């Protein structure tokens, strides 16, 4: 199953999409960058949303370009938030097992099961609505967007702990 971005979210990023470049030698992944910022906003604000497939655009199954080595960290952040939202204590081995088996699929290139990708996408879909709350208008310049985004993430999270 592919990661998917809301079409309206993709549109929202259109003015800075061209600036979502990668470092030399790495292929850029502008839509995944947009998806990533939505995902982080969703995680920070603990907001998930289910959106019909017709209103989303499939991205890629694997972590592209600049995210290739960051996949395990994204899974870590996702699992941490998901276990917390399900009220699973990390010490409850059996429940942790069950959730990991549900969300993780080592046979898939992104290491997430269909259920896992579905839940992952929900954070990104909900996160787009968080971005709409955080920003008065769609971003027009990359440097302004990034600096404001960082400030908004800071204010959304209690200092030191995401969960």
């Amino acid at each position: 199953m592919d990661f998917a971005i809301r079409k309206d979210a993709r549109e929202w990023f259109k003015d800075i999409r061209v600036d979502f470049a990668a470092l030399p030698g790495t292929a850029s992944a502008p839509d995944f960058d947009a998806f990533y910022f939505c995902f982080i906003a969703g995680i920070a604000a603990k907001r998930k949303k289910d959106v019909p497939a017709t209103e989303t655009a499939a991205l890629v199954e694997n972590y592209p370009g600049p995210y290739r080595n960051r996949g395990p960290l994204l899974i870590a952040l996702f699992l941490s938030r998901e276990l917390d939202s399900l009220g699973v204590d990390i010490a409850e081995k059996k429940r942790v097992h069950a959730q990991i088996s549900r969300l993780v699929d080592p046979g898939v290139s992104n290491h997430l099961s269909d259920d896992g990708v579905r839940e992952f996408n929900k954070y990104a879909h909900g996160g787009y609505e968080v971005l709409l709350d955080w920003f008065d208008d769609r971003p027009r310049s990359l440097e302004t967007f990034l600096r404001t985004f960082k400030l908004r993430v800071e204010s959304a999270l209690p200092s030191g702990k995401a969960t």
Partner: protein
Amino acid sequence: MSVTMRILGWKAEGLRCPDHEIDCCNEQGETYSISLIQMPNGTGKTTTLTLLRAALSGGAANGAWDRARVRELRKRGGDVTDALFELRLTLNDKRLTIRMEFDFEAGRVEYKTTWGSGQEEGFKPPFELRRFMNEDFVNFYVFDGELADNLLSKRHTDAEQAVESLFQVHLISRMADKVSSYWDEQTRSVTAKDETGFTRRKNRLEAWRKRHADLMSAKSTLEKRLSETNGQLASQEERYEREITKEEDRAKKIGKAEGVVNDLRRQIREGAQSLLDEMRDPHALSPAFATAMFELKSGLDRAKLPESAAREFFEDLAMEDACVCGRAIDDEIRTAIRERAKNYLSTEDVNVLNQMKSAISDVVGQSRHKAEEDLAQTIKQVSELVTNLQSAQNELDELKHAAEQSDPDVMKAKDEIDRLKEDRDDIEKELRRFDGKDNKVRLDRINTVDPDRVFAIETIEDGIKVFEDQVAEVTNTRMLRQKRDILVRIIRSAHEKAKQAITAEIRDEANERIEKLMPHNDIRIDEIDRCLVLRGQSGGSVGETLSVGYAFLSTLFDRANQHQLPFVVDSPANPIDFEIRANIGELVPKLTGQFIAFIISSEREKFLTSLKKASNGDIQYITLFRKGASHLETKAMADLACVTTNDGFRVTGEQFFNEFQLDAEEA
């Protein structure tokens, strides 16, 4: 049907360029593969190119050019009241003539088209040529440095659209229209269960469809206006630059201030790229994320997860007759082992978890704050640059403001820019009304909604689906409609995939060409969308941009070899470094069957030799310059191939062409 278009020549009289006639054919009446027209700057190259584009696109037809724009083309210092530009073409060996008649008093241009049965009023090219003879497409084969820049700007061109037109990919989506019409036909012929209900529903559907068509047409008109306004804005900005830099002292000060601004912009762009890459690390965004990840790892460690034994060990054990401790394994024990094995993760799961834990250790094992502190430092640097840019921009604005106050020409250009920007903003605002969905419209109460009050196109489309459903229900064609929807979805997906596959192939081939043209440069096309999106950068130098443009267009023309279009270029090699010029010269003859270039004398170096070599000598040389502007007049008049017009000279031949040394008109 395949199309071969050739430019036979053109004639200009009474216009801003010297009166001249160009014939691109050899003695046998065949067009030269390459026609080089040497014109010093200031002779009217831009005017000639504008006229060629207008003649090929009908861009000035039906009053599209206002009086000022028409009068801008009037011959300078003269009192001509009318003028003429006539372009002669062949379409699949059949003659087509487009004539533009200028009336400067009225500020009007009238077109006349001669094709087949005779001359007709207006711009009326044959149907099969229309997709190549419109303003958007002409820009791809009548090309200059500015248009190369535009290829990289989504405001100006639609590269994806050019691919669609050339390869006719849009025909796939026309199949979807046909399928939809079939369903409409069926609903008409089927007897409705309830005639009154049927008519009411059908009328509502028609009203919503009409609204959809009206909105689409209004949107398309606005998009065209937006593109024209952007074009006018670009030329006014150029005019502003010309006016503001005409005084040397002022030009120096402004140039210096602009240099500072541009340098800071570049630094900010680079800083933002580093910032973006740091922010791709989630643990850098907040110590809270770093802590959450670290606690996940610590928690898993405490719970001894993943275990050292994986599920597969117990599954294998269950197949043995005896346990590792030596005791026998019967069926009951076997079932228990298998059942409890499910509490262990598989080897692969274990690997994923270990990989994740190791990645967490690497980035936040030592400190949960370090990455965030580094990010804060980068943000501080970018913020300082932004503050510096604001100061530098203020300084530049003040200089420009002072120039505007003291020079009415600058002020006039500024006012025009402000007006055009206001127009552009208004159009963009109007266009935004069509975007997204109208949340006030509830589909469950759609029967009470007046479609004429809805502007969101997506909402209208949703409404149409509801009404189609209602019509399908009353006509018992629901199943057929579902089939139609599936078929339409398949066709649209095929259209999208075909487009993506073609643009991806063109991108890859164009990138190969770029590599050949500029072997020591890593500029590449990342994506072909509305514009060409460059990999890792938003623009390049003039030479790079032009080379990318050539590579893209040559691939495009090469791939669509069933259509042969002429390729007209202004200054094909001027802004390009010497070592790349030779590569461009080799590429040009392969671009298309007819290449017409306007060049200046200093551009010949390196370019001409390789061009000549690659074209087997099938080159026409023309030199065109204005009377009274050059010491070369006497030499020109001594040449047998010299033709003198009211205000200019045209000399054909290679020797004169090569000996001519004049980049710009003499004052």
